[in-house]
């Protein structure tokens, strides 16, 4: 997998996006208010790269709609999106246009997936028995990316040899980089073990807390319900040689349910993906994700003049001890882009805000797609109240 590369993506007439051209780097981040098409564009990108594998997956479960774009859009993007693909929908990659017909009738058959998609609805993949649902268990009209993700995790878990009673999935000595594993174990899963348990022949995914009690999926914290599928997705990617074609990872809203500290630890996982050579697309509503991108861009620049200082910056950013973090240096060679999906009436414009320059004249850039707008407003209000009402707050002055 190549790094430091860029891919030019051009779309026309896709949902609210009339026309947009984006450069996708090793790491690309989408921000913007709800319902501005971030997720639809990410799904369209997967469709573009994986149309043969997607069609094959549908056929595998006895369903095909190559001649009905509306039905296909309903099945792929989800219920309510039947009219998403129109004859005017155009997508091109590095200047090579791909029409609707090609997406619905891909020439290649049986290709492996190139894009691994971790959807925002990842917590919905579990059945009440605390096990992921199979692809066929979902309704037609449930988004394909959710069904496919659930199926990937289910098949991965089914393949694990757990012995007669139970097997520990996390923490596991042979999975994940040690410093990352230790960090996630202590700060995110708080000493619990993710375990596959066999009960009367039925496999269940449980969190085992110190002392031996086992919690099924519905008893997990919100953050655990959101994070564990991401962790299992990471396991799937490193599964034995079976996913060599995957070179893109899309992860939606990694911040869901997570305390900012836990999110920072999860972002280390993203950097590990980048270090392994994957190209990563994120969508987010969290300023913390952009804080990382902003800091990394300055660390990268510093690395050219003073690599040791840059190394220290990386360790400081992720609170790593001096002995750790050298693997993170791989990010110095990575290209990073950030896009803001700006609502304009019934349309959406996509702005490149990659420089994240706080001094930029454009507030969309300086305020990071307005992610910090409310925090800024609250700060202004407090300052105004303190000034106007003579309410000088204590500042530790004696």
């Amino acid at each position, binding site marked *: 997998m190549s790094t430091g590369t860029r891919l030019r993506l051009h779309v026309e007439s896709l949902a609210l996006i009339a026309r947009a051209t984006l450069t996708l780097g090793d790491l690309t981040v989408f921000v913007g208010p709800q319902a501005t098409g971030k997720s639809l564009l990410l799904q369209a990108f997967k469709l573009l790269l994986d149309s043969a594998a997607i069609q094959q997956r549908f056929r595998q479960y006895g369903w095909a709609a190559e001649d009905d774009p509306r039905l296909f859009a309903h099945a792929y993007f989800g219920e309510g999106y039947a009219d998403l693909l129109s004859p005017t929908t155009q997508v091109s990659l590095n200047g090579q246009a791909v029409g609707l017909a090609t997406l619905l009738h891909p020439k290649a058959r049986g290709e492996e997936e190139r894009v691994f998609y971790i959807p925002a609805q990842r917590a919905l993949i579990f059945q009440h028995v605390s096990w992921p649902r199979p692809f066929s268990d979902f309704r037609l009209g449930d988004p394909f990316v959710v069904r496919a993700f659930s199926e990937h995790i289910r098949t991965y878990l089914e393949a694990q040899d757990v012995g007669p009673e139970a097997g520990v999935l996390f923490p596991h000595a042979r999975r994940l980089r040690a410093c990352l594993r230790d960090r996630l174990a202590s700060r995110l899963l708080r000493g619990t073990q993710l375990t596959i348990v066999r009960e009367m022949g039925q496999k269940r995914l449980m969190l085992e807390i110190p002392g031996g009690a086992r919690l099924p999926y519905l008893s997990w914290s919100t953050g655990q319900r959101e994070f564990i599928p991401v962790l299992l997705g990471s396991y799937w990617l490193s599964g034995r040689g079976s996913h060599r074609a995957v070179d893109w990872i899309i992860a939606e809203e990694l911040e869901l349910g997570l305390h900012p500290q836990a999110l920072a630890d999860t972002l280390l996982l993203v950097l590990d993906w980048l270090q392994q050579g994957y190209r990563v697309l994120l969508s987010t509503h969290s300023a913390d994700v952009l804080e990382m991108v902003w800091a990394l861009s*300055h660390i990268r620049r510093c690395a050219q003049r003073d690599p040791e200082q840059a190394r*220290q910056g990386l*360790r*400081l950013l992720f609170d790593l001890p001096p002995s750790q973090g050298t693997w993170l240096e791989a990010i110095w060679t990575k290209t990073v882009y950030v896009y803001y999906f700006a609502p304009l009436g019934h349309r959406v414009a996509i702005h490149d805000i990659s420089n994240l320059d*706080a*001094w930029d004249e454009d507030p969309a850039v300086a305020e990071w797609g307005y992610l910090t707008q409310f925090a800024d407003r609250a700060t202004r209000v407090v300052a105004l109240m303190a000034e106007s009402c003579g309410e000088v707050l204590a500042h530790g002055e004696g």
Partner: protein
Amino acid sequence: MAKASAKPASRAQACQEGFRKAVTQALEDPACYQPGLRALAKGARKHVDATRVHLAGSVALDDCVASREPRASRWDYLVGACQEQERCLYGIEVHQVDARALANKLAWVKTWLQRHGRPLLRWARGKVVYYLVPTPRGSARAAEVRRLAQLGLRIARRVSLTCPPEATRRQA
């Protein structure tokens, strides 16, 4: 015994003396050098924790150059500190969080150091760390704070002097 205790004391003395000479050369006014944190206004002094270093001295730069550059966006203070073999120069400004005003002040002090303060830069071996101690007035909006960070300005209600400065210390 006397020899062993004299060594740190002489080192502290050398630290102060070196800084005093550099200040006097740069500002051509011996009165600009003040021992310890005495150059800082009382209200500013309590925002500086110097317990982990030998203080080399301080300068109220704003006051010292006011007559020569009355219209400039002058910087408040320079503070020298030593620890073992290290010498550190801190630039401290007490001001509200106003990125544009602070950008001008920072640009001014950097230019001043290049033009007039070379003895100080030599003393500190070229490394200066700049701190803003924010006053309650104004609002520290996220974008404003990020602007200051991009300028290389650290923000702290209490500046903890270390030498080498915190987070630029080389780790083993």
